[in-house]
């Protein structure tokens, strides 16, 4: 166990027509998704297969009564909205009035960054396409998490865990980590409080919207640890840990560290490593306190009486991780894990020393540098609208308008991925999970696919009146290694299903 596990991200994007705040966001989002589906010739007929979705199952061991919940929690019920699967195994769809992109399942943190970045590009292309349709208005897309008027939308991460790990251990071990990881993966935000009316800058876009420690909700009373129990895999073996507290990151290093460090800490928890000494008093208050101090000086109160800064607490996680990896792998540590440890250590050291030096690598630092620049040059207070605009436009997904992208173009922001790799990931799936089977089926047998989901591909075959559902319950099966030969041997979907049934 290391940083490698089945994982992925699902990002809700902000969407707007400039000058038209009352536009119907659900309709707009559908237009964006449909425009991309048409352009990429993704079979618009290939819908999402909702049969195995259980959004109300709680990891603490019970199911919520459907009638008792906020309708927004019923995420298995919107067949009317645009919803497509792409040949890279990803899902592009509309969720709660936002266009959303879920990456295909990956095994390596760098692949999570790659397909997440591909999703950004897909969103940009989709919006450009929708905007260029006859009679259409310009549609802007933002990879951020709030409108600074009280609304927040999520950038979620998913990590496959062993079901054998007691959930209470996950909760206890991960909470202090979630409270403090924003020092490197916070995206930065102008405005304090849910409605952004407080003046100032904070590290995280999501911190003010976290209101509980543990819970099932995702749209209100958002918890640090979400208990949704929908593994899309054998529930006896696996749990899908659904993380909702993260910010949307444009920085590739921030995304890499966010995913890689979280995966590593989960590996420690799964192995039963003691992290009790890192527990904090009142994590919900602390996650906001950490966010509200961009000087990184705030000291959290730990249960054992110590008071550490967020960076120091992260350094304790890093130390524990180093020991865990050395103990478990010794010299046999895989390069992905070693890479995460090296980068994590480097970033924490620099955050402790001179955070401003990270302006070329971390979103909140890059954003803050621009903001402080405008404040100094133009004499602006924190409540000046130009600063709110810089915050918002930082995350505009257009390469010619988004400020993150302008920083990259100017050579001021470092990237990890080759352009050609991102372009490729828009249509090609990861090779090491069931996403490969899903994406390749879609590419090879597009006309025969009626629906797909994380754990199934549904075929409409000649000579059969009912649809044929091929389950893909095991996220590790359906890799290129396992099934390429089979797919190469089957020219048609009929051949494939016959081979699978035979």
């Amino acid at each position, binding site marked *: 166990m290391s940083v490698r596990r089945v994982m992925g991200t699902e990002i809700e994007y902000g969407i707007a027509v400039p000058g038209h705040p009352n536009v119907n966001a659900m309709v707009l989002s559908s237009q964006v998704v449909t425009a991309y589906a048409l352009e990429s010739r993704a079979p618009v007929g290939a819908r999402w297969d909702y049969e195995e979705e259980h959004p109300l199952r709680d990891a603490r061991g019970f199911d919520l009564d459907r009638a008792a919940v906020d309708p927004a929690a019923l995420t298995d019920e919107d067949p009317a909205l645009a919803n497509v699967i792409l040949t890279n195994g990803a899902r592009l769809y509309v969720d709660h009035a*936002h266009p959303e992109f879920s990456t295909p399942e990956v095994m390596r943190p760098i692949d999570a960054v790659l397909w997440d970045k591909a999703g950004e590009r897909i969103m940009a292309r989709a919006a450009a396409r929708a905007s260029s349709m006859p009679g259409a208005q310009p549609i802007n897309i933002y990879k951020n998490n709030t409108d600074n008027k009280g609304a927040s939308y999520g950038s979620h991460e998913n990590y496959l865990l062993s079901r054998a790990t007691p959930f209470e251990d996950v909760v206890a071990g991960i909470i202090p980590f979630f409270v403090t990881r924003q020092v490197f993966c916070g995206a930065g935000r102008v405005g304090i409080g849910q409605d952004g009316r407080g003046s100032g800058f904070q590290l995280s876009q999501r911190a003010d919207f976290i209101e509980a420690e543990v819970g099932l909700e995702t749209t209100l009373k958002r918890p640090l640890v979400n208990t949704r129990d929908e593994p899309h895999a054998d529930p006896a073996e696996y749990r899908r840990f659904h993380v909702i507290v993260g910010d949307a990151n444009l920085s590739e290093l921030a995304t890499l560290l966010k995913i890689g460090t979280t995966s590593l800490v989960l590996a420690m928890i799964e192995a039963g490593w003691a992290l009790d000494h890192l527990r904090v008093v009142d994590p919900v208050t602390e996650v906001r306190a950490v966010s509200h101090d961009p000087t990184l000086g705030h000291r959290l109160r730990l249960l054992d009486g110590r008071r550490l800064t967020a960076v120091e607490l992260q350094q304790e996680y890093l130390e524990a991780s180093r020991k865990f990896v050395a103990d478990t792998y010794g010299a046999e540590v895989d390069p992905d894990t070693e890479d995460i440890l090296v980068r994590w250590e480097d970033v924490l050291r620099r955050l402790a020393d001179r955070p401003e030096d990270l302006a070329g690598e971390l979103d909140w630092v890059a954003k803050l540098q621009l903001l402080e620049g405008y404040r100094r040059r133009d004499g602006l207070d924190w409540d000046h609208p130009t600063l709110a605009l810089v915050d918002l436009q930082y995350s505009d997904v257009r390469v010619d308008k988004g400020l993150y992208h302008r920083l990259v173009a100017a050579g*001021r922001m470092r990237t990890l991925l080759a352009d050609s790799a991102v372009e490729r990931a828009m249509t090609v799936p990861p090779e090491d999970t069931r996403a490969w089977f899903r994406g390749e089926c879609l590419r090879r047998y597009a006309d025969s696919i009626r629906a797909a989901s994380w754990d199934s591909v549904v075929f409409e075959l000649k000579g059969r009146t009912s649809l044929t559902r091929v389950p893909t319950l095991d996220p590790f099966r359906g890799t290129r290694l396992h099934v390429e030969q089979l797919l190469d041997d089957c020219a048609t979907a009929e051949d494939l299903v016959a081979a699978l049934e035979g």
Partner: protein
Amino acid sequence: MSERETAHKTTRPEPTQDEDVDVAVASASTEQLDADVDAILDEIDDVLETNAAEFVQGFVQKGGQ
């Protein structure tokens, strides 16, 4: 130099020529940093949406997950 050393018998370090140079270098690099940031601000001015107040006020989202 020796006069100062006799007159100020405290533990506080005397300003030396080296420190004067350090302070001078520090201001120069702050200026450099500012000029450096100003350069990117100029570029960003060109792409920033016009009428910030209206644009930001007009950005309204529905809550998501």
